[in-house]
């Protein structure tokens, strides 16, 4: 079955919408969110046909008092569906992130592969994050995993850069860039540059 590849770009939180990937389709979604919303957003992503594939990258840049509250459900409704979700968040100021990512694989989703990765950098004392990556698995012949981490910029990496002449701000910026660019690696160059400019403009560290 030839894979039909499609791409979807969300440039802010209000553009977020439910998705459904059909049999044999491959959908790639990239969302870059730099402005929060005061209310909770709910996203339902269905892998509705055999061998449907979803690759989703969500990037949150929190500044000032922005608030991000997202509940996302990834439903593997059919055989051999694949989901690969990466969430990267960098929270400055007094921003905070509330993320619930639920991967559901019912009996119909045998042979599915699911991976949910959620990484958060807290850049200031008041920044906060609450992440709940959850799994509800009934089909047994599956590979499902998730991972989450929350922390600040690694001290050792900062030391490495500072001892090579970078000042603190630049070192921090370099590490944040590396953290975020990793999620955009697979995109084509033009798109990556366009998205990156948007992200870069929002980073309060220059």
């Amino acid at each position, binding site marked *: 079955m030839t894979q039909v590849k499609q791409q979807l770009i969300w440039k802010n939180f209000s553009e977020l919408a439910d998705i459904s990937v059909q049999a044999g389709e491959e959908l790639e979604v990239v969302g870059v969110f730099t402005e929060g919303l005061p209310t909770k957003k709910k996203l339902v992503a269905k892998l509705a046909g055999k061998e449907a594939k979803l690759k989703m990258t969500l990037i949150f840049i929190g500044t000032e008092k922005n608030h991000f509250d997202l509940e996302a459900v990834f439903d593997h409704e059919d055989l051999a569906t694949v989901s690969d979700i990466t969430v990267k968040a960098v929270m400055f100021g007094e921003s905070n992130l509330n993320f619930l990512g639920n991967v559901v694989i019912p*009996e119909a989703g*045998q042979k599915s592969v699911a991976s949910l990765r959620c990484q*958060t950098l*807290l*850049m*200031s*004392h008041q*920044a*906060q*994050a*609450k*992440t*709940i*990556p*959850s*799994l*509800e*698995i*009934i*089909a*047994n*012949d*599956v*590979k*499902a*995993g*998730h*991972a*989450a*981490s*929350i*922390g*600040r910029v690694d001290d050792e990496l900062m030391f490495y850069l500072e001892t090579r002449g970078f000042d603190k701000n630049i070192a921090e910026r370099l590490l944040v860039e590396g953290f975020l660019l990793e999620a955009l690696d697979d995109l084509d160059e033009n798109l990556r540059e366009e998205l990156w400019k948007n992200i870069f403009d929002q980073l309060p560290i220059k």
Partner: protein
Amino acid sequence: MPKKNSTNGGAKKPVSGLSMKLSNQLDDYKYGFKTESTPKFKIGKGLNEDVVREISAQKDEPEWMLKKRLEALKIFRAKPMPNFGGDMSGIDFEAIHYYLKPSDKEMRDWNDVPEEIKKTFDRLGIPEAERKYLAGVGAQFESEMVYHNLHETLAAQGVIFEGTDAALKKYPEFFEEYFGTIIPTLDNKFAALNTAVWSGGSFIYIPKNVHIELPLQAYFRINAEFMGQFERTLIIADEGSSVHYVEGCTAPTYSSNSLHSAVVEIICKKGSRVQYSTIQNWSNNVYNLVTKRARCEEDATMFWLDCNLGSKLTMKYPSVYLMGRGAKAEILSVAYAGKGQHQDAGAKVIHAAPDTTSTINAKSLSKDGGRSSYRGLVQVYPGATGVKSRVVCDALLLDDHSRSDTYPTMDIRESDSAIAHEATVSKISEDQLFYLMSRGFSEQEAAALIVNGFIDPIIKTLPMEYALEMNRLIEMEMEGAVG
């Protein structure tokens, strides 16, 4: 010839090992049958103020404990049921006996014990004296001398190890200072219930810098009710001390009571270390809703080891509050959910002080339509700098109609922290099965080996006898798991 038990008249099934096909007993719970009862004075079913007063009177408690019980009853009635976890709709609070003296407990005839239980005892190598006790046939051990000697050794070191009922009377100062401070009555509905009707449990006090090498077990409490339904345990480890307490056993434990709601409070003072291991294998009629919490001061370590094998529904989240700098929490858990079972277990760690660390390692197995869920919380408060926490959850689904869930929450309010979580869900690796089978193991043997290897990192922290029993028990559960 099967023996008929007809004292209760009416619908009694003839009991014999050969005719007892447990899987056909759709209405009965796993070890189900009726007993012959010779009623003595016994508090009736249902929960009301009279029941609570009677419990307190029978135990001859101080006035302040009675007041606390009555207040808890009010709180229990006011609080709503939890809005998460398993299905608790089957609990009928008015159909439960809230207090039974051991001598009042309905005793079974050994001949009535289902063949499957007797076989399990054989396979696990349970000593003769213990079998009757575990099967609900005997009220307490016949052989008490061994345990009496142990008692004297502990007393010489200043260690207090008593049933909670007796300890309340002998050492009221500990209770006045600590009872209900780690798990207050208002904490949740079932903590309130326990505070109102608690009976039994262990009280342990370890003096400063005393280290107890031998794991203390509930068996050692002389004349104590084994695994009461509303046990209240309080453990106080003074500065620099250490102790390992073991609760429960791997052998299937019959209970006529369908609701078990224990409360365990542990205080780990500066530099102390407490390990609390639980192995629970209640019969499949039991709702096991437990609140367990420890508070760690500076440089103290709390280690929860939680094995959940039985019960219809278990909701249990051993917690550690890290209140002093450098305190550590380690929580290991194994959950097995078989037919008709839901294990909703997990762990909670609250980091409220700097340089505290926590590790949570949870393994679960689901089979025959069972459901095992991990529900956890890692919380870091502002100002708790330098925290490191790691949570690893692995689940094995042993067939295509069982279920595994993971609901971990990370609530981090301090940027100077490093928090990581990972989880995997899968079935037994076909490569590993093939490897073993091509070396002569049957598919069943291979699966059992792999499952034992899966839970091994946690089992090996148990005292040896328990570890051996656990391995044998898992092997038995794995029979019929494949093919």
